[in-house]
């Protein structure tokens, strides 16, 4: 396999090391997909309309059954059994992920052993497309940024796979689940390892596909299938933006590989229309994939999928693809301050908007979903303002604590579901109003969830504090010292925007602390509202599920210590900064206007203090104001009113989209295209041509003799008369045509 690099002559230092097995990294999960897929096909042909693998009864919150058997939704549900090959799948599914993580770790150590690595390691496998001026290779690029992503994907992914072994163990679609999950990891790895935009796009589309498949995993419920469709279609809108950006890149630079684009981007005018447009279109793609305003609406609905899926795809990895894309395109974004301001502004608005919705959600997964949207907003604030390391840092810590939160809630839901199973209750197992006091029944999960909550709220020394503080801090500093501050956004000076986003960010941080604490209080504290009989069945989840939680809990604690700011002279200061420097360092400088903004230590301390105060205030506010004792179970809970109702209904955004976009499209399709053209014109025409006099005439249709068909047929039959004279005629006429062709040349 050939190697190409931009800077160094000769072979890349990583060649010949374990890094040359880079191609094996995505291939392992792909192998898992194939094997698990084959195993799932063994049962595929026995399934009919009562496909148990697709059906989970009538409840809106389907969950795998535990071994107590029976259906939680009435006795009409057929008996559930584990899939025949569940054991084999349990080995293959997580196994390939663990192997991939091991390989990733080995490659990471090899990279670390090099010391400084300035040029990325590119492996070219074959020439993919050579059309005119477009030369595209199928190649993977390994540098510090993709290494971070690979570790997160395989590491957190492996943990989630292990969790799924317990969570999904009684699901009849067990192999299908792992097949899709493996396929997702494959595509995600292709996304982060691709060496050019089209390969990245393949991964981009692939993870969108897997997201659709996994959200609608229990597709016999229409709501689940609809959620999958919604995710895919809204994503598509973003993909359109990404494609336009690629077209513009090729048209202006003639290159689509990252190295080539980075090298030739200097040809574009700094802050000019072209580079700004490219960046804005890229961001449109990110808004779709990473659920920012206005394309975030699919993420809450995506909670219809199994909880580990929500953890992996809609928290840790897929939704972070947008952040990765911007980080990857750092050269372009650093040249377009106006685009950067747009990203920052939308990120900030999304952060606070989603956080406000999270304040009034009752479904535990919906709270986390809006929390994810909000935290993604933070990440975009980071990468949009030129603080690429901060954004990626928050991506990393968020993967840890959000996965932990989702998996933890999965354990809770698992226990709730088992309880409702046993009593044949039809209550909602995911609604917090039906929970309460779970700390008595699930102490380990309780502790770990608190670790994650403190992390997300931003309390030191937990992970989220460092990453969130770094983002907010860099926005504040860049508000007075960066190209973004000097630029204008629709006439407004950039520094105003950045300060505004800083303030919004603080507000969102406050709200984050509040709603997360609210979630903990309502779920784990206070009296239990599940019910007398159900209470007996609430217990901790099996260790196959709690084990990964522990690992994630540890990471949520120490994860922030990878990039300690200079103001706190403890531990590895700026480790991530140094690690990512070869990839984003130059662009960060350019975006900051030549020199990085400096902060005096006292300013830093003030910023840190503000962040801590906000976090603690939020937690305190929640503890003070929220009274879990006054909560009623969902069935008896009163309706919200006032602004609370608006928040609970997510500001009616979905309804607005439906009225403004969906309904008009449906109406045009049904009324004009179907009734008008399809039935009115095309069907009529066909009847005219084909219908014979003897046929029953459709009401209103004029019966013709089918003469067109008959006439054509008659003419055709004349050519086959068998008479020599006819053939002679045909021959001579043909000769005339041929001669005519020659005569006219």
């Amino acid at each position, binding site marked *: 396999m050939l190697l190409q690099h931009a800077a160094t002559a000769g072979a890349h230092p990583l060649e010949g090391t374990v890094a040359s097995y880079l191609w094996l990294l995505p291939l392992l999960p792909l192998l898992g997909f194939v094997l698990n897929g084959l195993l799932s096909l063994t049962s595929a042909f026995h399934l009919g309309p009562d496909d148990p693998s697709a059906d989970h009864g009538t409840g809106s919150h389907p969950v795998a059954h535990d071994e107590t058997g029976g259906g939680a939704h009435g006795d009409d549900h057929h008996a559930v059994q584990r899939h025949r090959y569940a054991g084999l799948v349990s080995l293959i599914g997580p196994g390939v992920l663990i192997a991939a993580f091991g390989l990733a770790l080995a490659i990471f150590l090899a990279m670390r052993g090099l010391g400084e690595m300035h040029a990325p390691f590119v492996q070219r496998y074959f020439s993919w497309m050579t059309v005119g001026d477009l030369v595209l290779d199928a190649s993977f690029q390994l540098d510090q940024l993709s290494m971070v992503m690979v570790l997160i994907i395989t590491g957190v992914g492996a943990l989630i796979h292990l969790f799924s072994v317990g969570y999904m163990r009684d699901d009849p679609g067990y192999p299908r689940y792992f097949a899709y999950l493996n396929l997702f990891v494959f595509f995600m790895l292709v996304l982060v390892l691709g060496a050019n935009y089209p390969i990245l796009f393949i991964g981009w589309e692939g993870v969108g596909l897997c997201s659709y498949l996994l959200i609608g995993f229990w597709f016999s419920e229409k709501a689940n299938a609809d959620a999958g469709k919604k995710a895919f279609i809204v994503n598509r809108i973003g993909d359109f933006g990404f494609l336009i950006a690629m077209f513009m890149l090729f048209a202006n630079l003639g290159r689509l590989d990252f190295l080539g684009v980075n090298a030739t981007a200097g040809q574009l005018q700094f802050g000019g229309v072209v580079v700004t447009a490219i960046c804005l279109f890229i961001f449109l793609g990110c808004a779709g994939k990473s659920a920012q305003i206005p394309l975030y609406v699919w993420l809450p609905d995506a909670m219809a999928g199994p909880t580990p899926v929500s953890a992996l795809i809609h928290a840790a990895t897929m939704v972070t693809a947008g952040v990765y894309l911007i980080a990857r395109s750092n050269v372009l974004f650093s040249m377009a301050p106006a685009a950067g301001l747009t990203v920052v502004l939308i990120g900030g608005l999304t952060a606070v908007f989603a956080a406000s919705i999270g304040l009034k959600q009752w479904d535990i997964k919906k709270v986390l979903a809006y929390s994810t949207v909000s935290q993604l907003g933070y990440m975009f604030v980071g990468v949009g303002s030129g603080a690429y390391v901060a954004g990626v840092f928050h991506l990393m810590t968020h993967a840890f604590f959000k996965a932990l939160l989702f998996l933890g809630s999965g354990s809770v839901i698992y226990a709730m579901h088992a309880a409702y199973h046993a009593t044949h209750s039809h209550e909602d197992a995911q609604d917090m109003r039906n929970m309460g006091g779970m700390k008595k029944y699930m102490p380990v999960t309780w502790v770990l969830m608190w670790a994650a909550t403190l992390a997300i709220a931003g309390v030191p020394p937990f992970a989220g504090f460092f990453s969130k503080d770094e983002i907010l801090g860099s926005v504040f500093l860049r508000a007075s010292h960066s190209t973004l501050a000097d630029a204008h956004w629709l006439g407004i000076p950039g520094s105003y925007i950045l300060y505004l986003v800083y303030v919004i960010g603080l507000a969102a941080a406050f709200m984050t602390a509040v709603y997360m604490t609210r979630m903990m209080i309502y779920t784990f504290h206070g009296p239990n509202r599940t019910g007398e009989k159900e209470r007996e069945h609430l217990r901790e989840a099996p260790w196959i599920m709690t084990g990964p939680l522990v690992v994630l809990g540890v990471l949520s604690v120490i994860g922030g210590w990878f990039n300690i700011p200079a103001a706190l002279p403890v531990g590895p200061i700026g480790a991530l900064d140094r690690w990512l420097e070869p990839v984003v360092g130059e662009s960060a400088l350019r975006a900051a206007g030549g020199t990085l903004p400096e902060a005096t230590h006292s300013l830093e301390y003030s910023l840190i203090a503000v962040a801590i105060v906000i976090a603690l205030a939020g937690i305190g506010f929640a503890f003070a104001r929220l009274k879990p004792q006054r909560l009623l179970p969902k069935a008896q809970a009163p309706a919200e009113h006032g602004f609370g109702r608006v928040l609970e209904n997510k500001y009616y955004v979905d309804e607005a989209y439906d009225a403004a976009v969906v309904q008009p499209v449906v109406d045009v399709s049904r009324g004009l295209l179907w009734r008008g053209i399809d039935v009115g014109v095309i069907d009529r025409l066909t009847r005219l041509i084909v219908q014979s006099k003897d046929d029953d005439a459709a009401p209103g249709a004029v019966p013709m003799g089918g003469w067109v068909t008959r006439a054509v047929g008659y003419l055709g039959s004349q050519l086959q*008369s*068998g*008479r*020599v*004279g006819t053939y002679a*005629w045909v021959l001579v006429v043909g000769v005339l045509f041929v001669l005519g062709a020659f005569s006219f040349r």
Partner: protein
Amino acid sequence: MLAESLFFSAVLFTIGVVGVLTRRNAIIVFMCVELMLNAVNLTFVAFARVYGVAGQVFVFFVMTVAAAEAAVGLAIIIALFRHKQTVDLSNINLLKG
């Protein structure tokens, strides 16, 4: 003389074609084909005069082939006549199907 020969040849050829298209007697049609062959022979000879004797060699071969073709074709017509008692082309559709 080349242009005049080509003119004659073209006219003769066209007369042959019209005859093939128009007549119903199989033997007459066959003879029209012979007429066409003769027209072509004239072309060859006319060109041979300017571009070399190869044209005449070709005429030689054309005549040979015409003779062979006439023999076989007439044998076919005889067989046809025996079968159908007529050589009227409009009634003969044995090639059908």
